[in-house]
């Protein structure tokens, strides 16, 4: 009987088995397959080329591919500015919600909502609002005298990236709010009482108590968001498809389109492997640094 089995010392392995099998099938095997694919020729639209082993060909091509370098640079801009914005707005929202004034729960639902919306819908909402002819934001900015004519935000290489980052920040800042809020709940209120008796004002309390106490949680949130921002091209795919003129082309989007549009699976795999390695290196350095800071 399973009941009796559950009393044996192998029970936990039995509990883990189904998920391990599944993870092996849908993560481990494909990953190894994908890494292996990055050393092979694999173009779905050119079966004549076969699927032979081509060594480092894709990686060599990458080094000389200006789009790769541009995407890399764009990814850095995209991630850096999105993270800064999301963190700042997220922190402010969390601090405000944490004061637990009457009505906070309703505000929390509204403020956290964007994070749970689908990228496709979030993207189109903002396309609608930023539309060059019908966009309400153009109208508002014009009426406020901030611009003198309607702008095509996503069609202008000068503004496309910034606009996309704003949309991304709108959608994902609640993640920071959510985590920081959880961190704030863990700070004993006695600390604040003690600090205010010692004469520390709200700003000093924020700097001396709040931020140091939630440092770890912020570090965790940043790393998770960096992973998310680097890995998922969804929003950019909906908003700009990397345009205009590749001004919003990021690595993940480049890799996806290489596979989805050009059917060049070998090169796309090589791109994603490089992306993954860069991400791992970043994560490793980041964790190292944030640990050192703790001591």
């Amino acid at each position, binding site marked *: 009987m399973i009941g009796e089995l559950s009393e044996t010392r192998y029970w936990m392995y039995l509990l883990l088995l189904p998920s391990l099998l599944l993870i092996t099938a849908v993560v481990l095997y494909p990953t190894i397959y994908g890494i292996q694919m990055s050393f092979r020729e694999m173009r779905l639209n050119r079966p004549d080329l076969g699927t032979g082993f081509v060594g480092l060909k894709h990686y060599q091509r990458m080094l000389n591919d200006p789009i790769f370098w541009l995407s890399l640079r764009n990814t850095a801009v995209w991630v850096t500015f999105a993270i800064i914005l999301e963190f700042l707005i997220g922190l402010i929202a969390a601090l405000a919600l944490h004061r637990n004034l009457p009505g906070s729960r309703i505000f929390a639902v509204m403020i956290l909502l964007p994070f749970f919306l689908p990228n496709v819908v979030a993207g189109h909402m903002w396309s609608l609002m930023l539309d060059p002819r019908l966009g309400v934001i153009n109208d508002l900015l014009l009426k406020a005298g901030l611009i003198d004519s309607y702008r095509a935000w996503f069609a202008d290489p000068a503004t496309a990236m910034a606009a996309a980052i704003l949309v991304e920040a709108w959608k994902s800042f609640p993640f920071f709010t959510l985590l920081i809020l959880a961190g704030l709940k863990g700070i004993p209120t006695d600390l604040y009482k003690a600090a205010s008796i010692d004469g520390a004002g709200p700003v000093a309390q924020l700097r001396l108590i709040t931020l140091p106490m939630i440092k770890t949680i912020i570090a965790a949130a940043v790393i998770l968001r960096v992973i998310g921002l680097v890995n998922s091209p969804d929003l950019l795919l909906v908003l700009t498809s990397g345009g205009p003129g590749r001004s919003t082309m990021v690595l993940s989007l480049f*890799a996806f389109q290489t596979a989805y549009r050009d059917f060049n699976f070998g090169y796309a795999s090589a791109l994603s492997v490089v992306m993954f390695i860069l991400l791992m290196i970043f994560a490793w350095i980041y964790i190292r640094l944030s640990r050192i800071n703790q001591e």
Partner: protein
Amino acid sequence: MPRSRLWDLLTYAVLVILSAVCILPILWTLLTSLKYEADIVTREMIYWPTRITFDHYVTLWNQSNYPVLVVNSLVVTTVTVAICLVTGTVASYAFARFRFPGRMPLMMGYLVVRMFPAVMMIIPLFVVMRQVGLLDSRVGLAIAYTSFLLPLFVWMMKGFFDAAPKELESAARIDGSTRLGAMVRIVMPIARNGVLATCIFVAIAAWNEFLFALMLTTSQGSRTWPVGLQLMVGEFQLPWGMLAAGGIISILPVIVLFALIQRAMVAGIAAGAVKG
């Protein structure tokens, strides 16, 4: 105390502004979906329409394949949640309750999997799924979703199991229950809200997912609504009103579910992320 009054005021100002920024795009989309096309495409922006219509919804529902897309999404979401629930609950229980050789590496493994770029998974999954005949199938897509949702489920659920005291199982086992019995009879009822919150979180993620679906589905029979909607925009120059209507229909269940179980879900996400 005038000073704390001032801070309260400032807090409310921040909350109102942020809520407005978060909600107004959704409300504007809702409003657009209810406007006549003539009131959307105008020279002078109409902020508050004098007349509303449900035509966009009716047209979208009757004259496009949107219902099929929604049904496909429902199937994919349900299957994803089911797989995660069955395999993930027991796995997270094992992680939460037992100390055994290999526990830390395995848990880290489940965490690192989250770092894998979607693209890196999608390409080989495409090839593998094609080989085993699961490409362009709803079950195949659901299985693909578990690659990133199952680890998430396990970590989130582990937090909820951690919150249920260990002594309860010890007590139940001494009272004559097996470990399995203790899990089913004692721990699961306590963690019920956690299970629900985790399932809803996974359901929302599966419902919203776009990239995997775009790559792994190719036909009507299995395409989900995000892909369908996106393709409609590209292929048919979907009018704004209908696009807005499609968006509203699709996010309605998300908003309802989120509002219902917001607190438990938020706690679970935070716990899963922080411990990770």
